[in-house]
């Protein structure tokens, strides 16, 4: 059975061209970039080139790029690094209620180290209000971290607007752009951020490699101490092949970005409206327009997400859910709860994220298969029965 992969926000397949670019560094070119002999210098050159390419695409300069082991490390480095470096200036950090756990849990951890965290609410579309950011600022505020686009519901935040407020007050601004880099235009100057995280495996690059943009002059305590790599800001022998792959993937993504945005948006909207037409008691999560081109997130009332995913999987469709049962916790997605959804609805969410390989035929298949699955699960659900003890509104 041909599989239909609709979980690109979780991870993407490595592009064959990217693997091609990586292979020399997984074969004969094995030098350590810190070594001064030929093999080392070749590796160094490859790293420098990768850094240049990534910086150019982001509108940054090469010295402003720190390579990391992924988006989570980049987020941790940005937030802990800035917090600890600036702790003499203040102890207050502002973030939003819909951040990825790599930001959210990092902030929570900093509370143990004496920092005070303000978690801003979002509206029912998942938007942070720039005015709320302004209102939350205190003389103690040293850092604001608001993600560029949300990984679950795809809502894109007004980052440039927020950065204007923060620039006036000279407060550091971090954005987790893991879901946007390689998918929609991301330029650190236009966004006006000081710190920006990205992760290669979200744009058809390899897993386990990412980067943090750090505006010139911003001080950070390193997260990983040790050797002098990355100008003393991130120790450890560099994942040369991975970094080369990340740069290649980003360049390729930039080249086809306009076309892909248009194409995926169309498929996305077709999938959304198809679902809405075919399946009653369904809601769209996230913003209808300010939304990642590949993101579809809906809640089906009366059913639970994991059992939906398993059924889709058996039909050859890979998707994801904010259901508690996919995360091993009892609470469903904090993002869906932050939108104001009641627990029982939040449990029934389905995220389908489109990618380069998604075709119109794939969308049609999903629209054929999905209503039957939802209906079958609803027939099994004690909530669906009109006489049930606890009909949800």
């Amino acid at each position, binding site marked *: 059975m041909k599989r239909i992969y609709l979980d690109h926000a979780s991870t993407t397949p490595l592009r064959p061209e990217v693997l091609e670019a990586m292979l020399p560094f997984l074969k004969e070119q094995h030098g350590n970039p810190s070594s001064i002999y030929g093999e080392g210098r070749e590796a160094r050159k490859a790293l420098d080139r990768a850094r240049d390419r990534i910086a150019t695409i982001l509108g940054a300069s090469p010295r402003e790029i720190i390579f990391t082991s992924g988006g989570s490390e980049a987020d941790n480095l940005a937030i802990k690094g800035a917090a600890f470096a600036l702790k003499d200036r203040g102890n207050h950090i502002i973030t939003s209620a819909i951040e990825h756990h790599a930001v959210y849990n990092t902030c929570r951890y900093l509370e143990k180290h004496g920092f005070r965290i303000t978690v801003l609410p979002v509206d029912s579309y998942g938007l942070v209000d720039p005015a709320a950011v302004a209102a939350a600022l205190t003389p103690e505020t040293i850092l604001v971290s608001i993600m560029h686009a949300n990984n679950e519901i795809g809502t894109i935040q007004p980052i440039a607007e927020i950065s204007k407020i923060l620039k006036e007050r000279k407060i550091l601004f971090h954005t987790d752009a893991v879901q946007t880099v390689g998918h929609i235009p991301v330029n650190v100057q236009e966004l006006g951020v000081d710190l920006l995280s990205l992760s290669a495996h979200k744009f058809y690059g390899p897993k386990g490699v990412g980067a943090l943009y750090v505006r010139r002059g911003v001080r950070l305590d390193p997260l990983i101490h040790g050797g002098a790599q990355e100008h003393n800001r991130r120790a450890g022998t560099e994942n040369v092949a991975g970094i080369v792959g990340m740069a290649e993937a980003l360049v390729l993504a930039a080249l086809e970005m306009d076309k892909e945005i248009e194409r995926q948006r169309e498929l996305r909207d077709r999938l959304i409206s198809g679902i809405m037409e075919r399946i009653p008691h369904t809601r769209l999560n996230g913003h209808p327009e300010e939304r990642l081109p590949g993101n579809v997130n809906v809640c089906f009332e009366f059913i*639970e997400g994991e*059992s939906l995913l398993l059924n889709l999987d058996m039909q050859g469709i890979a998707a994801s859910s904010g259901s508690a*049962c996919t995360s*091993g916790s009892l609470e469903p997605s904090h993002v869906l709860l932050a939108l104001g959804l009641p627990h*029982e609805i939040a449990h029934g969410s389905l995220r389908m994220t489109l990618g380069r390989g998604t075709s119109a035929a794939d969308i049609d298949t999903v629209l054929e298969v999905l209503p039957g699955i939802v209906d079958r699960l609803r027939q099994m659900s*004690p909530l669906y029965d009109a006489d*049930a003890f606890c009909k949800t509104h």
Partner: protein
Amino acid sequence: MYSEKVMDHFTNPRNVGEIPDADGVGVEGNAVCGDIMKLWIKVEDGRIVDARFKTFGCGAAIATSSMITELVKGKTIEEAMQISNTAVAEALDGLPPVKMHCSNLAADALRKAIDDYLAKQKGAEENNG
């Protein structure tokens, strides 16, 4: 993640549905934590002759629901009361650790259905007596 048995019971759940004239009904779980099971039993001569369920929940919740209805059928009330949540999990060749709460759910719903049956019996006896 799930054993083959879990997937079998999830894919082809046994005894889905309601028993309109059930002798006992039990509900366990709540929508907040994402798992609700409702279980109906039919009892004849102190023996469970039929059991059906409806479940809102994950794969493990559905599979344990299905499994427990299979396990109780033909058992006496006393025997059925002995069915523990680990017994349900074992009958399914195990559940992932994070899913163990789902087997609690099934055993607890069964217990409630039995309690409901016993209460009705008592009520009936009192009415008769």
